[in-house]
């Protein structure tokens, strides 16, 4: 039978989710158990999004509920700074300050256990290269909304080439204006303009390596 907390999370019932989390802490559940249950709830949210049952507003709500859960549980959770394994670098390209799509993908990847380094918005091409270098990431995700900024993505790919790092990392471009032509123009490996497709690509690339940990 499905867990009540998992259902509340999947149904985006904020009040009930937080109430159940409090109850479980009192009842002696470990933070890892509680998070894992919520994570399964988030997984259902993702599936419902793929089935067009949920929309962006629902994904954002689930992120908000999970943030609330994490705030309650924070004192009990070990940091994941020491986690080893494949990692992902993500950011919104230089000149663009839109972060919704990037944040949703990062949230869903993290709640699936992947380690994601978020560089934020308006990220210079050189900073992407530096981050890939420092983290040894196997995926570089670049988000863009303004088509005006697409040429800076090409610059990132060119810089990876120049640095001899192009084969080490898969470049995924994502966002509203992205399509096959943008992929070809920038020299990226993959493109996605919806969350479901982006997650499918990330999972396919990381498939063999798998997530690094449960949170």
């Amino acid at each position, binding site marked *: 039978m499905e867990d009540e907390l998992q259902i509340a999370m999947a149904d985006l019932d904020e009040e009930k989710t937080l109430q159940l989390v409090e109850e479980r802490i009192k009842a002696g559940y470990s933070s890892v158990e509680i998070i894992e249950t919520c994570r399964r709830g988030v997984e259902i949210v993702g599936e419902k999004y793929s089935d067009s049952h949920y929309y962006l*507003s629902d994904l954002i709500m689930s992120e908000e509920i999970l943030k609330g859960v994490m705030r309650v549980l924070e004192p009990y959770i070990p940091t994941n700074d020491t986690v080893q394994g494949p990692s992902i670098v993500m950011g919104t390209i230089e000149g663009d300050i839109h972060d919704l799509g990037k944040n949703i993908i990062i949230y869903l990847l993290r709640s699936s256990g992947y380690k994601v380094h978020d560089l934020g918005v308006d990220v210079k091409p050189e900073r992407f290269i530096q981050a890939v270098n420092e983290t040894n990431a196997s995926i570089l995700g670049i988000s863009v909304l303004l088509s005006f900024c697409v040429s800076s993505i090409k610059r990132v790919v060119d810089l990876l080439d120049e640095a001899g790092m192009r084969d080490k990392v898969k470049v995924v471009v994502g966002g509203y204006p992205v399509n096959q032509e943008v992929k070809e123009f920038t020299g990226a490996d993959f493109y996605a303009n919806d969350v479901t497709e982006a997650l499918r690509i990330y999972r396919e690339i990381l498939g063999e390596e798998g997530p690094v940990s449960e949170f």
Partner: protein
Amino acid sequence: MSEKQMLYQKRLERYITAMDCGKPDMVPVAFGVGEWIAKYTGTTLQEIYYDLDKSNSIVSEMLPGLDFDIFKGGPSLWWPPMFDAMGSKLYKFPGIGVEENSTFQFNEQEYMKPEDYDEFIASPTEWLVNHYLPNISTELENPGSYRSTVALIKGAAAFAMQGGIMAQAYGKWTMDHGIVGQGTGFTKAPFDTLGDALRGMKGVLLDLRRRPEKVLAACEAITPHNVNCGLAGAGADTRFPCFAPLHRGAYPFLNPNQWNNFYWPSLKATIEGLWARGKRMLFYAEGDWTPYLDKIAELPDKSIIFQIDTTDAKKAKEILGGRFCLQGGVPTTLLTYGTPAKIKEHIKRTIDELACDGGFILDAGGVVMGDAKQENVIAMIEAAREYGVY
């Protein structure tokens, strides 16, 4: 009647016939000068944004070589001095906040807090003056102070100056080149007024679950203001539509239930309120609106021009065609990454599919940005004339 006046009359008739779903002598073509012009004129975007005389002279130089009907304006969307006079936090403009050749960007914040809903709903404009203006402008932080009053006067003066300069420029373009402006007046969907400017996107999307009744009441309170906004800005004009850039109604921001209950009723009421006064809306459906076409078809016949950005054009034609004029058909990415040959081929197909029985205006799907190529934009206009004769 001069040659240019005759040309104006011909283009006006073309536009009005298409708006009323009729079949003119040829497919009307809409055109706007985008930020892409900067790189062909040796100017920075900052100059184009700040120096209206310069940006208008660029348009004046460009117009003689181009044969299109409906002018959408440009190359810049805003005149920043008005915002600068008030110390506005809303935008980053080229050279101020972003690099001098970078486009403007909106700095979205929760300028209205959840606890502000009741006061806002009770009197939206009063709340805007007392709280919103101070929240969004450093110079207006202390309403009634010397500094704030002067800044408000300066901002209002700048707004009027811009209006005057642009009206003069349009007058000249009409006389010299026979072009017809696309619209008069401006409005928004009430949900977008709330979501874009006041609560921010995340704020309003979370409100849908946390305080849905407040969202509904706020949208209802905004509706008469948005009807008025579309009319008042346009003076008495009802020949041309008011422009309404639509945002959160695009797929997939809202789930169908939210769209039906929160986005649509107040937008529909706004459109019906405008139409009751004879004013049409340019329903600028940025993004993909395919799932909502059936609901949009509930509107009174001809009350909107439906802009096709990434909405499924064939479905739009099937569901809305004949009852509403459709505008668009050329993906903005094609203007950047395509070639004149590809564009020509695309326009031929688009006209075959969408324009056949009239009620269609050829245009770029969305806002054409700085990366578009001039040769592609010109190819679009030329191909439209080549294939657009009925």
